[in-house]
Each structure stands twice: as C-alpha cells, then as structure tokens.
C-alpha cells in the first residue's frame, strides 16, 4: 500500500480551512493509502480545535519517533519551516523511499518544495501538493467522484488555504478530463 506523508498544511486545510475533517477520515480509511505522520506534524495538529475529529486516523498512522530524521535537514531550513515540520516530512520521505516503499509526500510550501527539487532530486517525483492530492484521490483512486472533488477544490478556493488561482483552475480542468 502506498504510504502518504503529509505536511501540516494538508491536514489544516481539511480541519480548519474548509472544516471537513470527515474527508480526511474518508481518504485514510479507504485502504488506498497508509498514513505516515512525524512527531512534529502530529504535535502541530494538536493545536487545531478539530484535532480530536481525526485522532482515530492519526493513532493508526505509522510513527517514526525513535529517530529524529528531521534533524538532518534542520540546518537548511528556517525556524518557521521547522516549526511546521516541513523538514521532518522531507526526511521521512527520503528514508522510506530509500527503504524501497512506495511513497508520496505532500508539501505545499514553495520554499520547501524548491529545496527538494534542487537538493534531493531523487525524491522530487514523489512530491505532490494538497490540490494535486485531491485530484489524485479522484482520478487515480476514485475516493471522490468528480463532482465531490470539484466541490472540495471550490471550498479550498474560498477558504484561507493559500494556493494560486491557476493551480486550482488547472486542477478543476484535470478532474473534468480524467
């Protein structure tokens, strides 16, 4: 089963921005993905008032807490990026990819994405954003039908989630065409 390693913003998008935690539960109870959550991302999520609504899926996720993989990338990233756990997501993705697992990791921060593209090219083709992941859930894994996926993207567009309009429009087009 494909392992998914999301960043904090992915969870917050569903939990607090569009307030649809049930969609996360649907994604990770679909048996299409195994959720992997690092220590820092998990701690960040506890700050959300809707955390308890997804606690069950987080408790089922794989943890890698005996080794602080993120420490390897910490010197290369800002304190803000570190507090959100971006470095941890990248490091876990690298290790799981090295171990030969089928993985995908979700990163939305442009700076962090550029770091992967330039410094850890080997895993860059396993990187996706929240919007791309919604498309994937619809087009590849059929977790959402086209109408549901389109509505999710529209909710995201009207929320506080930061994403370029062009990316959303492209995603809506992709869903219609898949």
């Amino acid at each position, binding site marked *: 089963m494909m392992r998914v390693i999301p960043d904090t913003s992915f969870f917050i998008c569903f939990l607090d921005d569009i307030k649809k935690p049930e969609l996360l539960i649907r994604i990770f109870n679909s048996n299409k993905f195994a959720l992997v959550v690092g220590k820092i991302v998990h701690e960040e999520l506890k700050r959300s008032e809707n955390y308890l609504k997804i606690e069950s899926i987080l408790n089922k996720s794989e943890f890698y807490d005996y080794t602080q993989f993120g420490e390897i990338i910490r010197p*290369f990233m800002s304190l803000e990026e570190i507090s959100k756990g971006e470095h941890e997501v990248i490091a876990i993705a690298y290790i799981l990819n090295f171990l030969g697992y089928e993985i995908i990791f979700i990163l939305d921060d442009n700076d962090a994405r550029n770091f992967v593209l330039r410094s850890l090219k080997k895993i860059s083709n396993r990187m996706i954003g929240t919007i791309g992941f919604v498309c994937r859930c619809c087009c590849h894994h059929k977790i959402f039908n086209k109408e549901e996926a389109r509505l999710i993207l529209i909710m995201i567009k009207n929320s506080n989630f930061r994403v370029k309009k062009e990316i959303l429009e492209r995603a809506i087009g992709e869903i219609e065409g898949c």
Partner: protein
Amino acid sequence: MKQKEMDRLEIVEKYIILLLGIVDKPVPSILHLEKEMFILSRANPTVAKFVSFIKHYKGPYSDVLKELIDSPLYHKDAYKVVNDRIMLTSKGKEIFEKIVKNYEKDKRFRQLLGTLKMIRELYDRLSDEELLLLIYITYPDFREKSNVSDKLLAPEKREEIARKLLKKGLITEKRYREIVEYDAGNT
C-alpha cells in the same frame, strides 16, 4: 582499556565505515566527517550513546572520532586520508559490504543506512565555511570555544556564505533571510 570501552570504539569505527561506504566517493574532508557524524548523532539517539561531542575551536568535536580517524583500532586498513579527503580502501569496502549483509534484515539498520545516505547527499556538497556556518547557527552552543565562529558570523561574511548556499539550492529562501538577519549576539 576496558572491554566496554573497546566495544564502544568498535561500534564507532563501524559507523565511520558505514558513513564512508554508503556513497561511492570520498568524504570531502575530516571536518566533514566529524560534522556528518555529529548530525547523525543528533538524528539517531542510539548513535549518540556511542559518540559524544564537545565544544571545540571548530564546532562539535569528538576525541574518539579523531583518534579512530587517525588510527583505526579494529579494521586497520579500512580507510585512508588523502589530501584531507577520507575514503574506504578496497579492504574497507569489503568490510562495509560484510556489515551491510550481516544486518540487512534489521529495519533500524536499514533506516540508519538511509539516514547516512541523506547526510552524505546534503553535507558533502557544503564547503568547510558553509558547513561550519550552518552548524553554528543551528547549534549556537557550539560557538563557545570556537576560534572561527566570530569571523563566519560577521554580517558580510554570513551574507556571502548564505548567498552561495541559496545559489546551490541547499537552503530555502526563508533560511537565507534568517541567516542574513541573524543576530549573532542574541543566542
């Protein structure tokens, strides 16, 4: 030397061999090897039990590591230093393969190999100055006793190094700004 200490040295020597063997090219300098092992010890608490680092004139330093780099105890010809670059010998490569084969079924060992590979992939690309600057800014405690940190942390020098790191794609834009705006006196 007591048996327990001997065992510890043997394990540290194996960590050195694994770090050198995980990528088929030399570690750029002894400074790199020391700092890469330091990062490994920060990432992996098991490693930290065997190698500890003290504040020194060029950042984190380990006596044990230095001694084993200069003269390996258990695998005498496993690695060599040529023009400050450190590499496995053909005998060392055989030892590396043997260690990997012995532990390949152990998940934590394979995770350790992945950790070592990521460290080499990122840190080998740094110059000595870039390496030390990132260490001093990330772990400011290790500036104490340093005789180079003031020079590297001077605003113009810091900006120059940060710019190079950004150009190489090794730090994020936000990290670049953080380094440039870093208050070296406030740590």
